[in-house]
């Protein structure tokens, strides 16, 4: 077989030995994730930070090294991002988006400024390129809707009056992400400002058109995809998701945004069924994504960024509290509810990692990965702990004071 020789094929699982090693490594990784997931559920914390830690420990410079399965993990991580965003889009109906924006657009804008500026400024202070600093701004901006929605359910707060405020802020952030990611994708290609502006304009145009289509034709698209067989339904939706994500990536709109918009487009019965079919798949591939991100980081690189990460975590925790408390006060929520809103929004998670992952993949800044990992680890954990004990922590006077609260942390 002369044409099968050569270097690239040497790493494919052609030999039984290689296949065995890959399977064993994947088995170990999945079992570690399963164990950590149990542990997280037991002590009542989100699993994302533990998965990240697992990746750190198993990567370069960690306790033991995974390498044979890396190819699979890298593709699995991309699938994880697509599924994370597809499901996020499925969670929201176009109507939800409209309501969310109408309810909190002012707070949404405050949210953008109060929580991207600290990240952006820190990036510049560390001497990073403006592109990398913008990415860090994105990392500090997005609260984790995955973690927060889950915890609202766990702590029985769905019925609370401040909950719509929290949820609509999260919706606003997700829309902002859909605009932010394509711009990032363009910036990372290293285009000049003029080229970048044109490309960013094109990207936003594509997103806007897709938004329009998803609002207008969601019934038709959903009817075409629909099937009574779960197998066929899953195959059609996954096929469509990968296709759209791939095309979006090729058009530099970012695969994640493509998947998100597809999720928004699917509605009705298809969306209902996918919401029950997809989560296990998303959790498996999402887990791979967090592990893979951890794998790409050498734990020794964490040490020099620990202090900046800690400072940034404290500052952006305060700015989030301020944003949340202000939004809740505007919605007529009492002092305790404002405090709960603020504390609930602190947790950062999957989307911070998605943004950082884009930068890492493009080689934007070597410290971005470690800093984001440390930052998300800190805020995913403390954010969920603070959210849980929100009612036991006394409300600070600045929030309890007048009904119209000034944003606490905003400059």
């Amino acid at each position: 077989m002369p044409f099968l020789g050569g270097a690239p094929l040497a790493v494919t699982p052609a030999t039984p030995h290689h296949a065995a090693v890959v399977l064993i490594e994947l088995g170990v990784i999945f079992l570690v994730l399963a164990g950590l997931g149990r542990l997280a559920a037991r002590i009542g914390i989100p699993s994302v930070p533990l998965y990240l830690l697992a990746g750190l420990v198993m990567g370069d410079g960690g306790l033991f090294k995974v390498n044979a399965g890396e190819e699979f993990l890298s593709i699995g991580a991309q699938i994880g991002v697509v599924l994370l965003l597809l499901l996020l889009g499925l969670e929201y109906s176009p109507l939800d988006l409209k309501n969310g924006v109408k309810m909190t657009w002012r707070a949404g804008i405050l949210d953008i400024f109060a929580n991207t500026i600290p990240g952006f400024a820190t990036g510049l202070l560390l001497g990073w390129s403006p592109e990398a600093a913008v990415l860090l701004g994105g990392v500090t901006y997005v609260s984790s809707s995955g973690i927060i929605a889950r915890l609202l359910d766990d702590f029985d707060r769905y019925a609370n009056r401040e909950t719509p405020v929290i949820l609509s802020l999260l919706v606003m952030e997700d829309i902002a992400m859909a605009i932010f990611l394509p711009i990032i994708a363009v910036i990372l290609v290293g285009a000049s400002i003029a080229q970048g502006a044109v490309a960013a304009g094109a990207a936003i145009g594509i997103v806007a058109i897709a938004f329009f289509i998803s609002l207008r034709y969601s019934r038709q698209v959903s009817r075409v995809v629909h099937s009574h067989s779960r197998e066929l339904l899953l195959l059609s939706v996954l096929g469509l998701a990968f296709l759209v994500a791939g095309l979006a990536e090729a058009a530099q709109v970012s695969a994640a945004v493509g998947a998100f918009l597809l999720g928004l487009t699917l509605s009705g019965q298809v969306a209902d069924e996918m919401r029950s079919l997809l989560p296990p798949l998303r959790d498996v591939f999402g887990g791979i994504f967090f592990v893979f991100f951890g794998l790409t980081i050498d734990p020794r690189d964490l040490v020099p960024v620990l202090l900046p990460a800690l400072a940034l975590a404290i500052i952006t925790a305060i700015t989030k509290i301020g944003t949340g408390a202000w939004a809740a006060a505007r919605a007529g929520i009492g002092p305790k509810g404002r405090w709960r809103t603020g504390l609930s929004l602190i947790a950062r998670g999957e989307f911070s990692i998605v943004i950082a992952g884009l930068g890492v993949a493009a080689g934007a800044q070597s410290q971005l990965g470690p800093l984001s990992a440390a930052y998300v680890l800190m805020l995913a954990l403390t954010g969920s702990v603070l959210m849980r004990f929100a009612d036991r922590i006394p409300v600070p006077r600045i929030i309890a004071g007048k009904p119209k609260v000034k944003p606490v942390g905003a400059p």
Partner: protein
Amino acid sequence: MEIYETPLPGIGVRYEFTSESGDHVGVVVRRDGKRDVALYDRQDPDSCKGTMELSAGDSSKLAELLGGTNITARLDSLKHMVEGLAIEWVTMPAAGGLTGQTIGDGHIRTATAASVVAIIRNDAGIPGPGPGFTLEAGDTVLVMGADEAVRKARTILIG
């Protein structure tokens, strides 16, 4: 009693009302059919003193205990399963139509392909009436089938 409705993006809808005795009650209807019933705290009216999470089955049981009926909800879920299925309740007129005649006399099945699946007479349900069943004024006839067929069947029934 006024019921306030608030959308919860990504979760469902929350309804709240104040009971006559002054208790503030909230019900979250999740998209997957689960319900959360919450009693708000009088000290901190934004939070709940307690909540109960009910599955779709639990909540229809509770609705029955509370004196509600859930026939409509069940029919809705049936409609959800069969795309394009129409279900209609037709009340028989005092005279005219098929009142006083048998179901077979109307040739509904052969002429429209819709089916008469049940009759409600004096609060008693009669499932699967045969073609020899005589319809009386005031009977409620449950017809199912495709949209168009049900409409035709309705015209035959009420004349």
